[in-house]
């Protein structure tokens, strides 16, 4: 059968389920955040934080439920995804709780809004919801290929999700970026969910159109130029991401969508020319928007010199603060709860949460976090390689590519490597939408990897082999 040749990376036949490995790793993923929580409490208040045992137990139960669902409904899934996501999520809550304890941020919130409310309990609640959603996805989605049927519905859904924040009355403009909607007191960031929905559309669409896009082309100067009508989709996506950028001031989402599309297009067609065209288009778009949109221009200026406008306008203060935060952390960091990353201000627990890692856990901690993210991406790409159907391959690479881009764009932004885009670090940043969406992303990757690693059904017994048997039970 072709099963063996199709799964060169992960042996499909007789693959061990690895569920016990997952359980062991999960135990670490639960214990480490509990220690971190105790550590923060001890360093800030000099005593064990309230309910260390209770929260720890709750967290362990949540992770345990996740594990049981995977064990029951996705037996052959990749064993690393769930523990890493759990670890990151747990440490994220601790980071948020740590920033909740900051007097400086409490005073800032009281001055600006009149009240201060802690973010950690909310994040804990969202984590619970997210794990429930995770279980639901695994329960309901028995086979990821079902999603192919929703190709065009997904497109519509993604468009709606992207447009929602611009609708007056529904969208909420928070610090310049229109990426939130508020419904009944809750704010939702539709872009986070759109990331997954649009990946379904791209995967379904490209799976059908890949041959036309790959083969019907003319060769020009060593590049395969696509036909005009085949260029349509990429032009549309390009225009859409520019619109998102212009109308919602959301550099990150626009970059993410376009990047994801180009990656999936390249994988589907195996044509390097698409990458070249994609890069040229994004450079063109970035130049035009960068020169016209003041929002983007300010971020580019702040990126070029994070300290230039520091004392005059303060427009670059966040980036400058963040970079100093990383620098002050040094190699080993100041230790949980002992840094001053809260100097960054409002966005300290969302967009800039990685700066707290940088300051309090130091170079060592940042590298550990980046490697954890790297592992998630690697497991995602491996899942794509192992997947047997083109839709699964495209879907998995789309999701992991988007994840990789998001990590790069956020971490690169707060570290001053690239201009700031205003996205959130998956699993770490405070915010319900982000946690929910990323857990769904993990659930889908687990589902695809389960399908990919599931052993092929045993071949039907052949009558010939029956004949050759010598020893018969008597």
């Amino acid at each position, binding site marked *: 059968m072709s099963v063996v040749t199709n799964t060169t990376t992960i042996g499909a036949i007789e693959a061990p389920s690895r569920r016990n490995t997952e359980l062991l790793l999960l135990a670490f993923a639960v214990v480490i955040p509990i220690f971190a929580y105790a550590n923060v409490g001890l360093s800030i208040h000099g005593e064990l934080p309230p309910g260390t045992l209770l929260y720890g137990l709750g967290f362990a139960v949540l992770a345990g439920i996740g594990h049981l669902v995977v064990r029951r409904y996705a037996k052959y899934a990749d064993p690393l995804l769930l523990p890493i996501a759990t670890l990151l999520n747990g440490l994220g809550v601790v980071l948020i709780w740590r920033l909740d304890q900051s007097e400086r941020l409490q005073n800032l919130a009281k001055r600006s809004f009149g009240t201060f409310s802690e973010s950690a309990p909310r994040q804990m609640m969202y984590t619970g919801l997210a794990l429930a959603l995770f279980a639901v996805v695994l329960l309901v989605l028995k086979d990821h290929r079902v999603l192919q049927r929703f190709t065009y519905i997904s497109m519509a859904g993604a468009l709606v999700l992207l447009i929602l924040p611009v609708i007056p009355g529904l969208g909420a403009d928070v610090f310049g970026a229109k990426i939130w909607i508020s419904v009944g007191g809750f704010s939702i960031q539709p872009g986070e969910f759109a990331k997954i929905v649009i990946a379904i559309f791209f995967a379904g669409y490209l799976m059908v159109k890949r041959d036309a896009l790959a083969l019907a082309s003319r060769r020009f100067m060593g590049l395969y130029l696509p036909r005009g009508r085949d260029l349509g989709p990429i032009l549309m996506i390009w225009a859409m991401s520019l619109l998102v950028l212009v109308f919602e001031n959301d550099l990150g989402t626009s970059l993410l969508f376009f990047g994801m599309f180009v990656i999936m297009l390249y994988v589907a067609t*195996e044509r390097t020319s698409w990458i070249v065209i994609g890069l040229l288009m994004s450079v063109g778009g970035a130049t035009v928007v960068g020169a016209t949109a003041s929002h983007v221009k300010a971020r580019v200026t702040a990126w070029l010199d994070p300290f230039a406008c520091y004392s005059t306008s303060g427009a670059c203060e966040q980036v400058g603060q963040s970079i100093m935060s990383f620098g*002050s952390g040094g190699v080993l960091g100041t230790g949980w709860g002992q840094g001053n990353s809260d100097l960054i201000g409002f966005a300290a627990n969302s967009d800039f949460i990685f700066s707290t890692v940088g300051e309090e856990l130091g170079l060592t901690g940042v*590298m550990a976090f980046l490697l954890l*993210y790297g592992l998630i991406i690697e497991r995602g*790409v491996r899942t794509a390689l192992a997947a047997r159907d083109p839709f699964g391959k495209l879907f998995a690479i789309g999701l992991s590519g988007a994840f990789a881009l998001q990590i790069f764009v956020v971490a690169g932004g707060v570290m001053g*490597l690239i201009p700031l885009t205003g996205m959130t670090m998956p699993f770490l940043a405070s915010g319900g939408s982000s946690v929910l969406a990323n857990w769904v992303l993990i659930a889908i990757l687990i589902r695809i990897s389960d399908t990919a690693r599931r052993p092929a059904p045993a071949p039907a017994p052949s009558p010939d082999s029956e004949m050759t048997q010598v020893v018969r039970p008597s």
Partner: protein
Amino acid sequence: MNKPLRRISLFCGLLVLALLIRTNWLQYVQAEELSTRKENRRVQIAQYGTERGNIIVQGGQPVTGSAVTAGSDYKFKRTYVDGPLWAPVTGYASQAFGSTQLESLEDGILTGNDDRLFFDRTIGMFTGEKKRGGNVITTLNPAAQKAAFDQLGTKKGAVAAIDPRTGAILALVSTPSYDPSTFAGNSKADEKAWVELKDSEDKKLVNRALRETYPPGSTFKVVTAAAALENGVVSDINAPTDTPEPYILPGTKTPMVNHAAGCEKASLNDALKVSCNSVFANLGDKVGRDKMVETAQKFGFNNDKIDTPVRAFASVYDKTMGRDGNAQSSIGQFNTAATPLQMAMVTAAIANDGKLMKPYMVDQLTAPGLDTIEKHEPSEMSKPLSAANAQKVQQMMVNVVEKGTGTKAQISGVKVGGKTGTAQHGEKNAKRPYAWFISYAELPDGSSPVAVAVVIEDSAADREDISGGGLAAPVAKAVMEAVLKNKG
């Protein structure tokens, strides 16, 4: 589709690698620069994040403290006990306006960040003790400091007192002074106090005892006397000198004015007693510029590295002037300028039989638990004159106090030596002169526990009244008495 997939995975790997390289760049290569940037408030937050150690004076009494400030980035605020009295010693440490003098120089010890406290910090980490700063134990004598400060009162001036045997600084006063407590925080009130001080006409922030130089006037004559004795120009202090009356400055037609009578051919002893300008100008000329410079430098002039550890401004004896300049400089005029500390050093060297001890005011640095980290060992700085010559100068200075211009410094039952000075300054000497007095007290065993220099730049007194003997000598007397009383 696997070939492009592998390429994409490589691309994702590169993204993560770029982040890893960037974080190494930020947190390893640039860490030092970023963590000490001026925009980085963490530096001040750390400085005022722990209870600051204290500056302690003789008798173990702290002159500083720390108070908790609520609702501020900076947890602790510096407080001062008798701020104006001790400001010339402590300097200030302000959350908003930086720090100076001991507060700045010993910041590492006071904040507890000094490498020498590493062991204490490590132990504290395990015992769970909060980080605290170490202490700076000074040599200052509270009674002497208070006496000097009270005596100066509202007058503008400075006092420096040294223990001649060790070089320990006993008093360091500068008036009018300021209270560093008033701007130690970073509130609006602190800012107002700071701006007022900074712009004050009285230059309250200047430490006149260390950082202001004045023409030393007649007090400089003891240096000239020492130079004359050391270089063999005079060997018998009671033998008449060949000074004519009037004495014409060499190379000019300008006569040297004497305020005292009987200066013609006066002996060195008599000339110092009544403060004859002509005799000392004549002697200075005879010693010659280079030898005068040599002696002055042995006393500490022209040295811009006198660190106590707070660095004193360099006192000046001109190295390139002509003969007439040298003659005028020999009576402490012309380009000659000295800090009060410098004149106290001159007095101390003479009182200590010619040996000049290096002046210092930090006796010990201690860990928060009062374990000594560093202790100052008195060291000899130079030997400007021989013991025999020093005793001759002492004899003359005692004469000044007993029978001459310095009678107001007499203390009953104690042998006191001194010299007055009234220094002209300003265009054509139009400004009110400075009143100087330098003196030392001697114990029955012949050693001296205290040498004082007082300068008063008083504009309130009548011009005629301004004289070292009248204004400055009582201040010196009070300081000497305070020190002697402490000795029992």
